[in-house]
């Protein structure tokens, strides 16, 4: 397991097989879907895909960090991070598929 890494190309190929569009158009649609999801997140929206999972933005406060190599203190600025919470369906299928 864990041997293969899929990319946009594999997702486009799946779309191409599923619907009778050209490979080129399939690739553009995959790109467009990811772009719209990204844009919504950048606007601070939560993206909730039923039976897949939820992407949400969390605001992290400023804190003082430390360079682990030098021990030097460095300020870490407040920032926004993205968290993904998988749906139960995804968790179940991933757990079942990798069992044993």
């Amino acid at each position, binding site marked *: 397991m864990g041997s293969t890494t899929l*990319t946009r190309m594999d997702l486009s190929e799946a779309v191409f097989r*599923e619907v009778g*569009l050209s490979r080129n158009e399939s690739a553009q649609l995959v790109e467009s879907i990811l772009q719209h999801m990204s844009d919504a997140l950048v606007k601070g929206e939560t993206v909730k895909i039923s039976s897949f999972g939820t992407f949400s933005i969390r605001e992290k406060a400023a804190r003082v960090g430390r360079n682990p190599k030098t021990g030097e203190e460095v300020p870490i600025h407040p920032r926004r*991070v*993205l968290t*993904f919470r998988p749906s139960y369906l995804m968790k179940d299928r991933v757990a079942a598929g990798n069992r044993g």
Partner: protein
Amino acid sequence: MIRSELIQIIADENPHLYQRDVERIVNTLFEEIINAMASGDRVELRGFGAFSVKKRDARIGRNPRTGESVEVEEKYVPFFKTGKLLRDRLNGKAD
């Protein structure tokens, strides 16, 4: 944004496609990611992020109500790491 809104946006941008085909396209994309992870594969979408599977070792857990020890078996869980471009965009760095 929810799944149906995403489908609507893509449908509006592609008036030459049937709504039901747009639904199939969007559903296929998410389905394909789950299928890959269920086979133990990674899905790397440059700029957006990467979906992978992480192993959680077996451990002794505790029933929080009764305090009783329970064995928790090893399991595999989905994991998402945000891509650099998206992380930068979230913090107003790129575009």
